[in-house]
């Protein structure tokens, strides 16, 4: 069981008149095994929500639970094996001076797991690479290959929830499709729960069963895929966003 619920997630910065709400009372629930999308324009707080759930940010209020347990109460070592994250920029998420082997070996060493060599090779095979990549450095790989390595690193601890922060927006379109298909296959095979952030509605439509539309720190509407496809969005901003996306596709 790895359902994620977020209740009243709020971040305030500054005080008095300079106070700014980065996230305003964000609430949603993701069932175990579901893929949930977060869309919105840049600066709407989508990635911030992921960073809160990832415990990379600590100054938020509200409640986030995974499988019924508040995340603040889960010990750090256990938490890594429940939640992992794939970052947006594959050029910035791999340490430039660490080989792929080191990148994959570190989590295994930290958690003192067995069969480390087999584990690393299997993790690479699972993302469509092979063991020969272990000796390479990130600068020797293409963007798509790096993102695959980043996914392998996130999956090597076998988490049940994967946070995906625009995992394909830095990749070109053909590679993007491959990575998205890979993510779908992995989710099916491992029954993972996805939280997928993107500004691209087409990607969200392809990846997620349900999605939340965000505007300046708040969720304006939560809908499912069929509502998105049939254009049954109720909130004016959500409708505007969807229309803009369709318009853009037609032009492009």
């Amino acid at each position: 069981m790895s359902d994620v619920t977020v209740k009243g997630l709020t971040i305030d910065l500054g005080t008095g008149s300079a106070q700014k709400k980065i996230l305003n009372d964000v609430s949603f629930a993701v069932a175990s095994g579901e893929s949930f999308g977060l869309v919105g324009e840049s600066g709407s707080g989508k990635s911030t929500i992921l960073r809160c759930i990832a415990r990379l940010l600590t100054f938020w209020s509200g409640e986030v639970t995974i499988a019924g347990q508040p995340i603040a109460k889960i010990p750090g070592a256990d938490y890594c094996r429940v939640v992992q994250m794939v970052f947006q920029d594959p050029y910035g998420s791999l340490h430039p001076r660490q080989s792929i082997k080191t990148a994959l070996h570190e989590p295994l060493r930290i958690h003192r797991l067995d069969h480390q060599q087999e584990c690393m090779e299997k993790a690479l095979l699972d993302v469509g690479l092979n063991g020969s990549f272990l000796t390479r450095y990130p600068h020797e790989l293409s963007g798509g290959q790096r993102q695959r390595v980043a996914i392998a690193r996130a999956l090597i601890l076998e988490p049940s929830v994967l946070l995906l922060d625009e995992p394909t927006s830095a990749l070109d379109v053909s590679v993007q499709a491959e990575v998205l298909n890979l993510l779908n296959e992995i989710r099916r095979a491992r029954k993972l729960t996805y939280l997928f952030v993107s500004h691209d509605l087409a990607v969200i439509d392809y990846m997620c069963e349900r999605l939340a539309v965000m505007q300046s720190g708040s969720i304006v509407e939560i809908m499912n895929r069929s509502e998105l496809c049939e254009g049954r969005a109720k909130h004016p901003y959500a409708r505007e966003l969807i229309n803009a996306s369709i318009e853009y596709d037609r032009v492009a």
Partner: protein
Amino acid sequence: MTTKSLYNPKAMSTPGISARFSGPLKALGAVFKRLSSDVSSCFGLVVIAILVLSAIFAPWIATHDPNLVNLPNALRAPDAVNWFGTDELGRDIFSRIVHGTRITLSIITIVSIVVGPVGLLVGTTAGYFGGWCDTVMMRITDIFLSFPGLILSLAFVAALGAGLENAIIAIALTSWPPIARLARAETLTFRSADYISAARMQGASSIRIIVKSIMPMCLPSVLVRITLSMATVILTAAGLGFLGLGAQPPLPEWGAMIATGRRYMLDSWWLVAFPGMAILLVSLAFNLLGDGLRDALDPKQR
């Protein structure tokens, strides 16, 4: 590489690329190659190699005993027997300079062994943790930085007593702050990088992140900075020796040699000129090597 081959694991295993860059040793070789392709850093390398070799083989290279007093032979001008002449006690200056390399080299080695790790540790911890930890550590660094190096070393030597060991301690104490500053500045640019976040999400402790992820990123610039500050270290050591607070006679320390030769300088120029030249050459060599290292190690220039 075509997009189709991305799906085929076999097409992606090109061992040729990995063989090229397969480890720190090869990377070191690449740095060395870059260094030797540049004339000025090549000169620096050669001078430092001579320094190291003469320190190791000093007893065989030196033509005389460096401490052998031979009063009838005092203040002899350079000739075939005494290549660099003799000093006021008749000691061979060439032999003393050769033996002096051991002192210079040990000062440099000890100072860099102390200063590098201390500066790196202080800087990266302050930069990574931020907040009050950063404030406290950096204010201490600022206090050390606000003293002129030589004056602070003078104060330390005065407090600890004159002598080579104390001079080394004093120099080490005064030369870590710039390195800590540099390491902190570098750390600040890396600490919010995604790969640090990824390491945290994998459950790495702060110490592990600092040592394994941040230090390797700071190391090149710190290495360059240490090499460049070696020239200052040599000059400070010579200055302390000159003031009689560093190496004590009869140790053949270059600065101390200049200090004693000063009285005879007008008639016997070789007493001061040759040790001075040695100091000049070695500091110049370290500066040139530091410049070359900066070009060779700077990731932005690749």
